[in-house]
């Protein structure tokens, strides 16, 4: 066992973990942060994406001990409160507005990856968005509304009016 000190979603935790414990398992099983999920065992799906010191990482590829002394943000910590509409992160809000989710299993990871994408590139093109979230798989949406959501959030975060259509050809 190794002891670690981590800040997760604004709270400090001290725990003894096995060296082999993955960050995602530490989050889910030790801290009960079950908003972050596991979708694969080969680091392909991105469902487990969180921010480690502000950068997006797949938490199934990071050992809990590697997060020692770090700041972790999960989907549960991106909005300032309990998720009532006003307090949502613009990316969360945009996923809701643009119907960027169906079953929602990929959603925490998608949102975390999208937030990071917009930090790197505040006004990405459609292609840049598609390539930027390539590491996150969604089986439900066909991605189009996820792309729209990221575009909409980009607009809102840069203060310009939303550019994306809500309903495409059906509007």
């Amino acid at each position, binding site marked *: 066992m190794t002891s670690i000190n981590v800040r997760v979603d604004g709270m400090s935790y001290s725990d003894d973990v096995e060296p082999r414990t993955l960050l995602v398992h530490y989050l889910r099983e030790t801290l009960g942060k079950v*908003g972050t999920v596991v979708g*694969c065992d080969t680091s392909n799906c991105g469902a487990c994406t969180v921010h480690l010191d502000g950068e997006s990482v797949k938490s199934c590829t990071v050992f809990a001990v590697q997060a020692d002394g770090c700041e972790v943000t999960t989907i*549960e910590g991106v909005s300032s409160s309990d998720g009532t509409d006003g307090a949502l992160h613009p990316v969360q809000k945009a996923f809701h507005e643009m119907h960027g989710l169906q079953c929602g299993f990929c959603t925490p990871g998608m949102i975390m990856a999208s937030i990071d994408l917009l930090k790197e590139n505040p006004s990405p093109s459609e292609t840049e968005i598609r*390539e930027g979230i390539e590491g996150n798989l969604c089986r439900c949406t066909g991605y189009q509304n996820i792309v729209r959501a990221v575009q909409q959030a980009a607009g809102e975060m840069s203060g310009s009016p939303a550019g994306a259509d809500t309903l495409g050809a059906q509007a």
Partner: protein
Amino acid sequence: MTVTEDAATLAPAKEVGQPRRRKEDARLITGRTTWTDNMVLPGMLHLAVVRSPVAHARITGIDVSAAQQAPNVVAVFTGRDLAEEQGSIPCAWPVTPDMVNPGHPSIAVDQVNHVGEAVAIVVGRSKAAATDAVELVDVDYEILPPVLDMEAAVAEGADLVHDQLESNTSYHFVFDAGEAGTGADTEQAFADAEVVVSRRLVQQRLIPAFMEPRSVVVQPQGDNFTMWSATQIPHVLRVMLAMVTGVPEHKLRIIAPDVGGGFGGKLQVNPEEVLALLLARRLGKPVKWTETRSESLMAAHHGRGQVQFIDIASDREGNVKGLRVRLLADMGAYLRLITPGVPALGAFMFPGIYKFPAYRFECDGVFTNKVPTDAYRGAGRPEATFAIERIMDELAVELGMDPLELRRKNWIQAEEFPFTTVAGLEYDSGDYEQATQKALELLGYDELRAEQQRRRESGDPVQLGIGFSTFTEMCGLAPSRVLGSLSYGAGGWESASIRMLPTGKVEVVTGSTPHGQGHETAWSQLVADQLGVPFEDVEVLHGDTAVSPRGMDTYGSRSLVVGGTAVVKAAEKVVAKARKVAAHLLEASEDDLEFADGKFSVRGTPGATVGIQEIALAVFAAHNYPEDVEPSIDAEATFDPVNFSFPHGTHLCAMEVDTDTGMVKIRKYACVDDVGTVVNPLIVEGQVHGGLAQGIAQALYEEAVYDADGNLTTGSFVDYLVPSAADLPHFDTANTVHAAPGNPIGAKGVGEAGCIASTPAVVNAALDAVRHLGVSDILMPLTPERVWRAIHQGGDGGDRATAGTNAYGGAQTESTAGVSTPASSLGGDR
């Protein structure tokens, strides 16, 4: 502003048709979800399954002693330990009276029949402890020859999957329109035909690959058991588990909490669900099992898996005369819930939207040493649609006709609805021409055809093709009597009830069980309109057999059509009951009451009104209500449709094919779907998108590949190519609306449309791009390797070499595909 406009603004907007943002989202976008794997119970034990590494073998010995002694291992069980109580995984669809079902143990006892079959289970205090000990279980196998190829499996003298059976054929199912009286004699039609085109098409095996891995938790409480499972079918599961395990049905409660996608893949009674229940009973402790992705790909059921021999007959002018289909359908090693029924369901859809005078369908269900197949989005209908839409193109080529012209000549005209097809189905409504016109505009058809011509003439290495798919599907599963006539083991009704709470809030209990479809939102819209209550005042309850006791669950694009209708019927009953109370409270005759926007008012007496939400409080207090009624306006309804519904649409794909590299790229995808009345356009569009992604993925990316020993070489997301955002195009979608006459909502079903229609559009487009180079078929998925080989070496591009998958070191992902590297050059046998 005129008075009329004023009135219009005052009246509450109809909810049906509004792109309401989903109620479900609030918890999903904030991580406050209840996935089964989130569940932790005091004293809970964890299960890890030891799985067969071989496809076909006799188990000659299992040594569990080392595993039993491993730290924090509570117990280890083998098939022998559970043989007496495990029963067989049920098959609810014996498609023929003489269908052979070898039985399906949840855990192998004497013999394993596919890689990934359970042979032992370790129970540990933690998941890690159980998983660590899996490797310590020592199993001796006496290897038997694996049966993998269907055509070889049905040949004379083939090795047998189940040596107690006489052959590898489970059943032979025939539908003959001549015999059924729905069409002319097929043999005669072919004998008389001027033109016959025959093809052998392959529907590769696919993996549903829902994003949430399967997971189950069972809690014993005395002689009661509560099971949480990531399932599409809590109600069906309860009945089946009771029958299989002998746990009485009333002692079993099944809860499907938040479920992360299913696509048919969670329409199953899983071996692991049976085993978790048996072990919870035996140990008297709560147990949890959650699969890894590799387990999921290897052991959860697959979909598709057909070899299709299809013949089409026509005259020289392109009037179709007959259709003949012979299928080999891969059952895998066992029959699961509806394994044999999937191809049989497709039997009725091969004629598509065309007026064939004669039709014959035959299917052999074939056992192989692979994981069983079962429902995957579309279940039988994508296979049928693929075959008919591919063969229509082949016939057009043979006749030298425009493929759209040929379709137009043969499809059912708008004025001919309702139309009874050669397969005996009564298509309800639609207009194929209208949808097609709209799709052509959406695609920019004429311009793209002109560009195709330019590229042809200039010999551009990148060629362009346009592919059609004009399709229909049978949805709204299903009229119970029809299911009965097809030997299905259950009905197709759905149940709903509405509870009016004292504060005027409304609880809607539905037997439909969502796993991403947005029922909570759409059902709220339906009820808000029916009862005239605010959308926000409606709560939809589902997925728990104790809360929603009756249901047939969610699959086959049935939820809105059947389950939504049950909700509407229940609401009508609520209004009828409330009307009596309103009449009493308003001291008026029922006949003089009008109900609009949630209020009863007395005709001609302004101001005499009472709201339905007030009536809910009045019957709760029950101080003043009519003598001849019960003090409740709650109601329940069960709806059993009399017919299927038949959504249709035209899907068009424009595809670029790089003839130098074999790389294909969708240039534009446009589709117009007619799914009847749209309750929520946002949800409908999302369903179409998701379906398109899966259908396109079948055409371009996905295939469950087994090697010569029966190992699944696409056993992780490294090799099984679920497309990413970068692998898919933008979709241009639109609707036409022909309301379904068979239900009061007018909805036809949308969950499967995109998945059913898109695959042939994509393949037809690729072939259209390279047909002038002598290519007439390419096996799916259209990997660059196959496309290149088809162009440069002829044939259909050949089987996908297992050596080409990453598991064999032949790394080739879609993003590196087409780039020749030392690694990728290992990937074929060129």
